[in-house]
């Protein structure tokens, strides 16, 4: 009798130990629902919080105020350290308030293009081909109870994510983007956040900054003409290799800020990670092939010959460098 009791206890303990070792993968439907709720929370909730954002070696603190007023999303992002910078978004209109000489100001001409709502619905169903979503129990962020979720890549062509979702509202409280070695390349984390009625509409008003510059921008469907008769066109290029699960998300002819040069832009996504491939005519001042990294974002360039012309191809995205190199190496002219 006592022997029997002991063995059944052992089985229970053993089962518990096993389940602790291998966290349960969420059923696809559950994972989808969870991530969809997270996306909705960003857009539909009223929140006012302070978060830190670490990207590589940079650490930034920002305040975000988000409120839906008369059915319209209003958002205000305030940089709390360094040069003052505020980004206000009212529906599809974006306003940047910066000090002269701000990096973002030099590039402001092309700040968001296309309606925010355009591709809002992500196909989370696709994720299951490339990622395994696991529930990791509970955690605590910004003084709030959080549900922990790991989004693990199934191959070496993409990064993984660790997410902390507010248990009450599903708002993303903390996210980490991690490479195959478990190193954190990018961390986003709320330090404090208020929800609902606690979010005052006056918090959406910008602070006046002496000497600042303001630029108003209205979002358009397409920011520039799409002229495929020019020297650069999007349907002229193809990639001989794509990491499994990645599909073309958009294709555009963009006008690069500053240089005013046309650049073919092709965006690929696996539903979570995104990279852009750009092709432009080889600038007359030439270009060194190079690799740049900003936290999770890799950027590389290489020269491509097509016909009698030289082009400069670049890849920018949040994917591992080896995958990026392989993709760019496979760029071919049609």
């Amino acid at each position, binding site marked *: 009798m006592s022997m029997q009791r002991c063995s059944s206890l052992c089985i229970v303990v053993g089962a518990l130990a096993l389940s602790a070792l291998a966290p349960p993968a969420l059923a696809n439907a559950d994972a989808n629902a969870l991530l969809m709720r997270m996306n909705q929370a960003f857009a539909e909730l009223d929140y006012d919080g302070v978060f830190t954002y670490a990207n590589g070696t940079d650490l930034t603190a*920002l305040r975000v105020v988000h409120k839906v007023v008369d059915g319209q999303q209003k958002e205000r*992002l305030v940089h709390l350290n360094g040069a003052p910078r505020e980004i206000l978004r009212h529906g599809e209109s974006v306003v940047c308030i910066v000090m002269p*000489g701000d990096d973002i100001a030099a590039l402001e001409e092309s700040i*968001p293009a296309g309606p925010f709502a355009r591709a809002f619905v992500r196909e989370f169903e696709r994720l299951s081909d490339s990622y395994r979503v696991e529930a990791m129990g509970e955690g605590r962020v910004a003084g709030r109870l959080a549900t922990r979720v790991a989004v693990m890549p199934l191959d070496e062509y993409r990064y993984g994510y660790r997410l902390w979702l507010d248990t009450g509202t599903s708002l*993303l409280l903390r996210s980490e983007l991690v490479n195959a070695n478990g190193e954190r390349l990018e961390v986003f984390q709320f330090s404090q956040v208020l929800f609902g009625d606690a979010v005052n509409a006056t918090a959406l008003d910008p602070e006046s900054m002496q000497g600042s510059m303001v630029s108003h921008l209205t979002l358009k469907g397409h920011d520039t003409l799409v002229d495929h008769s020019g020297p650069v066109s999007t349907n002229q290029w193809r990639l001989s290799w794509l990491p499994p699960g990645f599909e073309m998300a958009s294709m555009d002819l963009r006008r690069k800020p500053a240089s005013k040069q046309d650049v073919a832009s092709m965006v690929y996504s696996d539903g979570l990670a995104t990279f852009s491939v750009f092709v432009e005519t080889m600038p007359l001042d030439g270009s060194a092939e190079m690799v*740049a990294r*900003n936290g999770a974002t890799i950027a*590389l*360039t290489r020269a491509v010959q097509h016909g009698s012309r030289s082009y400069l191809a670049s890849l920018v995205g949040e994917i591992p460098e080896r995958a990026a190199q392989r993709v760019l190496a496979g760029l071919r002219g049609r």
Partner: protein
Amino acid sequence: MSEQLKESMSAVMDDEADAFELRRVLDEASANEDLREQWHRMHMVRDVLRAGSQASVPGGATELAESDVLALRARVQAALREPVDAEQADEPLAVVPAAKSGGAAVSNWRGRLTGTAVALVVAAIVVVNGDLLVGDAPEVAQVATPEFTTLQPAAVGPGSIATREAAMRRLDALRMLHYQTTAVNRPGAVSFVRMATFGRSQPVRPAAVTDTAENR
């Protein structure tokens, strides 16, 4: 000299400066002799590079002889290639693990865009042509080309300071475009934060340096 001022100077040189940047450079230059000196040297380097391009294209038919221009520029850049290995040894090897990049050192080359680096490039020009230090820009343009075209062609190196700076600006602009695209598609998410926190690129490894190091 501040990093920002250096970037402004280079923007002015690339004709990409806005009114504010131009004003800042002019104001600083009027008060700072070192800056004027560096400004002069940057222009000299650029003039030499441009002189090389133009001289190989009779009649200014730039479109037609693009390959000539590129070939000549490659030789000029090879001639101007600065010794980077010694400097790289002192650089912090963060960000990209060395093993992943074939054992090549990873350096923040932007940090090396200093007066010293400019001086090294200028020294290289002086070795090639002692006349370069005297005279104004048009004379430089006239004497430079025949001298440089006698150099042996070499693999395109990390390029001149102006080239790398331009390449860096190009990558920054593309990075911003990328952030915008993803931010537009995912409102409020981290991708929007990436755009909102946009700043100049920091760690950079010119791919050509990797090749050179491996070939030795």
